[in-house]
């Protein structure tokens, strides 16, 4: 019995000693980082340029900015090109063609010329007959700062598409230091360009997210930290006339009368274009670091601030600014929103895309007491143009049109969903 007890105690002591060994006391961590990255598919610049013309319609996959001109809607397919939609009957819009423009996110139209970005270049497309549109001119290096996922398009070849790859690597738990293959801020622009005009104009109407603005014979394009002016007196051959560099990142531009309202990630800036070839800074209003499309009328500017990966910041609200003194805009009132993006105003009705909260229609008769009139559920509402009693809404899953001729009975009249031509 005594021998057995001793044996047992010995075994227990040994077990206890083993437990106290360093190997038994440890915090172990294994961390794997899985990421998807994009590999570019190239074509020569000549091939790409030769292919910029109307082709068969394609399904909308990733809708971006929008411009309307006459009976046509020009809808950007982010980084891929432009869908041409015949909207003669808004209740039955017809996708009639597609212009392949790699790296395209912005559109502006004057008369029968469409201006679009082609990565670092600006392309002019004759849309006299939208079904037979074709490129007529290229200006190289207008947007030199553009870079995509770490790849820079050179002068001989261009990225026309991307393919994805997924990799998993083991990394340190304390300092993960992930390998990001992204960057594509420009790729991420779900943006598009302006407050509607009340009459048909030779200039296409863009949304508030636009980075192109057309005023008379000048095309203003914002580019990273600069406002560029291009003379389009000869519509088919734009010429850069000036560039105003800024100390802040520029995101959107909205023209109103003889002024340009520029949304930057640090505030709203007003430029005077009385000398249209050389815009000059007139005033500004600073806010938290967020994205901020802006529209304006004679007395007020409406700025939606939203947070997001590329925008940083955590503010989501509508700021109404009193711009009666244009040199020093004053905040009149802020209204909380969920993730406000594109906005448009027609009369007293203010339309705001509020992300997954959908489209919000507000009564803005009193800018100091804006009230919600109607909320329309649309997933990922991003951009809106309210024009001629029809609100065109670009959302994550397609293009919607609402008739608001009766503001108390706003109704859906048509929708082109993503995935459908």
């Amino acid at each position, binding site marked *: 019995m005594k021998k057995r007890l001793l044996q047992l105690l010995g075994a227990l002591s040994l*077990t206890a000693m083993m437990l106290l060994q360093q190997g038994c006391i440890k*915090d172990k961590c294994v961390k*794997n980082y*899985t990421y998807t990255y994009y590999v570019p598919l190239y074509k020569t610049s000549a091939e790409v340029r030769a292919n910029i013309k109307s082709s068969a319609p394609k399904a909308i996959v990733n809708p971006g900015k929008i411009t309307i001109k006459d009976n046509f809607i020009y809808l950007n397919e982010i980084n891929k090109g432009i869908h041409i939609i015949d909207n003669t009957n808004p209740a039955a819009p017809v996708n009639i063609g597609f212009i392949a423009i790699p790296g395209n996110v912005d559109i502006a139209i004057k008369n029968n010329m469409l201006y679009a970005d082609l990565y670092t270049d600006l392309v002019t497309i004759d849309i006299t007959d939208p079904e037979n549109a074709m490129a007529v001119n290229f200006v190289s290096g207008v947007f030199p700062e553009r870079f995509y996922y770490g790849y820079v398009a050179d002068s001989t070849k261009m990225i026309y598409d991307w393919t994805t790859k997924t990799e998993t690597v083991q990394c340190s738990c304390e300092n993960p230091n992930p390998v990001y293959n992204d960057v594509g801020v420009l790729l991420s622009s779900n943006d598009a360009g302006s407050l509607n005009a009340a009459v048909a104009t030779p200039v296409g109407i863009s949304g508030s997210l636009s980075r192109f603005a057309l005023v008379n014979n000048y095309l203003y394009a914002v580019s990273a930290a600069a406002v560029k002016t291009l003379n389009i007196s000869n519509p088919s051959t734009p010429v850069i006339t000036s560039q105003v560099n800024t100390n802040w990142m520029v995101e959107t531009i909205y023209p109103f009368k003889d002024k340009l309202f520029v949304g930057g990630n640090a505030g709203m800036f007003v430029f005077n274009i009385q000398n249209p070839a050389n815009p000059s800074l007139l005033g500004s209003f600073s806010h938290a670091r967020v994205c901020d499309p802006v529209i304006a009328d004679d007395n007020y500017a409406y700025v939606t601030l939203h*947070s997001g990966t590329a925008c940083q910041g955590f503010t989501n609200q509508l700021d109404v600014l009193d711009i009666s003194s244009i040199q020093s805009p004053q905040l009149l009132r802020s209204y909380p929103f969920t993730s406000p993006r594109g906005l448009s105003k027609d009369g007293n009705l203010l339309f705001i895309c509020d992300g997954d909260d959908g489209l919000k229609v507000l009564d803005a008769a009193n800018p100091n007491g804006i009230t919600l009139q109607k909320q329309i559920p649309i997933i990922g509402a991003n951009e809106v143009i309210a024009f001629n009693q029809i609100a065109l809404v670009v959302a994550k899953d397609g293009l919607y049109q609402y008739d608001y001729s009766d503001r108390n009975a706003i109704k859906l009249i048509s929708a082109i969903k993503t995935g459908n031509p």
Partner: protein
Amino acid sequence: MKKILIIVCSICILQHVTAQKKLIHFASYTSAGFVTGKSPVAFAAQTENGISVKNWFAGIGIGYDKYNYKTIPVYAALKKSFSFKPVQLFLYANAGTHYLAEEHEWKTPFSSTTIRGQCYGAAGVGCTIKTGKHTGIFFAVGNCIKKIHIVETGSIQPPDALWMYDTVRSYSRIECKAGFCF
């Protein structure tokens, strides 16, 4: 839950059926103590309930473990006792899983994180000082392991380039506990 009820009922029936012979009886071990390892010392408590057959005990345990993550271990417990009156020495082994007892899912505009408990296990030695036929107080020391699985996913705008961190944290600690049994 249904399985647990069946097991508990089975234990009760077995206890009743064998009450005359006393070969099998219900037994319960409840303890509290601490776990210590590379991370700061933390509180832990457990209760194990099951059946005792001669020198063996088998049951189900549930507890609370504050080491790094607050978790609730749920496990199968096994003990083998060696009687040296009035003291009983025992070896024990536990194996099971554990559940987070704190916030374990959250989202930001850019990512989402989920934390789950993976395996849980312990093994060690102890000694029971008998205070009655089936009652006593006990002390135990052993090695206890718990694994935590953390998944963080997000997307890089755009067009939705996805990323994921998949992390498994494994904590091997010494546990020291004291309690009572009946």
